[in-house]
């Protein structure tokens, strides 16, 4: 038998390969007023407190399609008609609407969708979107925590005031809890007036701290401000009692730097920052501020930042155009402004170029000493809200640096005042926090 020319045969094989390759390429592709803190103190706690009467008491990718066929097809054998489309199973839902199961199909669901859209027998094709149970905590006051979950619920205060917040003006944390509820590994230092260690919503969350005012190991809260901030950040959640904290599982360490009058001084603040860092806090909440700069204070903040600690501080409640210290040290500190229940810049919230982000700070339901609960207002609670959110991020992604977390808050926040001030602005910084954007996987298309 005479042999054929091998070069000719190989050339034919190569051409066949290239033609086949081209074909392959084409086939495959979200009170009663109890107390007002002194706001003009050298260091002051930044919130008003109002109390509320106690009431008694991710495999989310669709795998199937919903297809509506044109009425003319009723009574026809739909399975036979669509046999060749690559769906593993076709089942009737009602009338002319069917579920096309694409789970075991070799063709991507988007391609199958496109195929069906081009089919003249098909009226409508939709993805069979996966729904999931929303994990809402069972804490009875959660209803009042519209900063966490605002669906436009009505809030009736004991003084007869009725508050009707704007639906959606919240930090979107309920969705975020699907991905992070915090970790016991993450310690949050609360530099404030101490905390109520006996509060039923806090006693299981507080670790031993320090009292810099009394220079002892008992940071007992004789003011109420620190207990309020601690509750916002991480009150016991889903315990059928009181409120929900933002960072369910984070540990809280109170460092008392404010006295019974809500005032303190920089020297104790500096000591507390350094101690919190040295005791392993990865987040420091400072719902306090003053108008004077301090190089020693700035050094302490730098020390914390360089040890990869995220520091958050309140911008101040005077409604003026300058941000308080330490929030003003924006190289090391995230300055947190306040929004109200309608996602608007709160009138009392100081503004300035140092503002990084904003969080709800009006009528924030939280813990108060002696087992009580209260509504607090100011950039203090806004800062505590932000600290809780940072706790969630640090728990889920412990490998992120403080600088990266700054950027995540910056780029992932909701620019709620973009109609007036698109992008970064002096009122809300990069925008109001959106916890879900920081922790939930973002779908790219």
């Amino acid at each position, binding site marked *: *038998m005479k*042999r*054929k020319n*091998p*070069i000719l*045969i*190989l050339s034919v*094989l*190569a051409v*066949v*390969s*290239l033609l*086949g*390759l081209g074909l*392959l*390429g084409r086939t*495959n*592709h979200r009170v009663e007023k109890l107390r007002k803190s002194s706001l003009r103190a050298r260091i002051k706690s930044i919130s008003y407190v109002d109390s509320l009467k106690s009431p008694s008491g*991710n495999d989310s*990718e669709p795998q199937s399609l919903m297809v509506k066929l044109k009425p003319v097809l009723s009574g026809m054998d739909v399975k036979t008609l669509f046999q060749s489309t690559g769906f593993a199973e076709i089942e009737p839902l009602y009338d002319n609407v069917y579920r096309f199961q694409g789970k075991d199909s*070799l063709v*991507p*669901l*988007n391609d199958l969708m496109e195929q069906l859209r081009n089919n003249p027998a098909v009226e409508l094709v939709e993805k069979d979107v996966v729904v999931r149970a929303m994990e809402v905590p069972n804490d009875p006051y959660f209803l009042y925590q519209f900063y966490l979950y605002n669906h436009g619920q009505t809030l009736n205060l004991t003084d007869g005031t009725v508050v009707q917040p704007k639906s959606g003006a919240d930090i979107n944390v309920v969705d975020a809890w699907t*991905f992070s509820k915090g970790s016991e590994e993450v310690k949050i230092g609360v530099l404030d007036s101490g905390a109520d260690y006996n509060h039923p919503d806090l006693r299981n969350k507080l670790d031993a701290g320090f009292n810099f005012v009394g220079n002892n190991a008992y940071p007992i809260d004789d003011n109420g401000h620190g207990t309020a901030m601690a509750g916002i950040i991480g009150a016991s959640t889903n315990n059928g009692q009181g409120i929900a904290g933002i960072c369910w599982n984070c540990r809280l360490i109170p460092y008392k730097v404010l006295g019974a009058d809500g005032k303190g001084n920089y020297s104790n603040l500096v000591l507390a920052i350094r101690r919190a860092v040295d005791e392993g806090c990865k987040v420091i909440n400072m719902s306090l501020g003053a108008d004077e700069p301090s190089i020693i204070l700035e050094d302490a903040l730098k020390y914390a930042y360089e040890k990869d600690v995220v520091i958050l501080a309140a911008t101040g409640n005077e409604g003026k155009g300058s941000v308080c210290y330490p929030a003003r040290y924006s190289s090391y500190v995230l300055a947190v402004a306040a929004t109200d229940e309608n996602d608007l810049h709160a009138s009392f919230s100081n503004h300035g170029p140092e503002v990084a982000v904003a969080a709800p700070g009006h009528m924030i339901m939280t813990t108060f000493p002696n087992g009580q609960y209260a509504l607090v207002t100011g950039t203090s609670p806004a800062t505590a809200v932000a600290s809780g959110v940072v706790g969630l991020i640090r728990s889920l*992604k412990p*490998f*992120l640096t403080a600088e*990266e977390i700054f*950027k*995540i808050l*910056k*780029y*992932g*926040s*909701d*620019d709620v005042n973009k109609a007036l001030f698109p*992008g*970064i602005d002096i009122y809300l910084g*990069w*925008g109001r926090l*959106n916890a879900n*954007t*920081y*922790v*939930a*996987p*973002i*779908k*790219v*298309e």
Partner: protein
Amino acid sequence: MRKAYIFLLILLFPLTAAASDLKVLVGAKGSYKAVPIKFKSTDAKNTVRNSVLALSASVEVDETYTFSLSGGIDFTSVKDPVTFTKVPFSIVTPSFSKRGLYLGAAAEAFPFELSGFELGGRIRGDLYMPSSESWKVTLRIVEGQFKADPTYGAVSVDLLGRKKLNNGLLLYGGFSFLQSFGKIKGTETIEDLSGKEDLKIKNRFVPGLVSGLSYDFEDYLRLTAEASLINTWGMELSLSYIF
């Protein structure tokens, strides 16, 4: 092509010097394979599908030992969405398909004989290098980019038996153990924020079945067809010219 043929002969000369019957085969093959995988860090399951068109060269010694190399173009498809949980912002990509390069090598030996069957085995390695796929990351304030770079490969160890029928048809079959390896490297860039995350594949040797047939037409053209069932199915068809 002639130079390549001479180069191949020089390369394989030491292996083949003592052989009494030496055949060199040059041809083309097409294959499709779907392999279930699991990612190490997330435990998420997925399926990688590879469609390959390649040119191949083999040396067959004494009809007992065969060494093959192949190279060509691959179309890799990642069937399900992939979730990257670590990069600064977590990302979930849709399923995606990319074209790229393919390299393969195999060694086969049938040194034993039992009741008219030749017994032996095959070790085979395949490497797929698809190009990267990118998507926009849309946040409320800024827009960024996410890029996925898959590299995927598989090594299979097959225990085979074969028999040549009177009509010249060679039938073979046996057990296959497939080890997948590789990763999808994710890179996120949003303004001055960036991060990388490698999703490594953690498959252990997955057992399966393989069977095929081979037929020489007029002693210069060989057609080989093979099917495999390793959790999911695969097939390969090759046509070679025998020198």
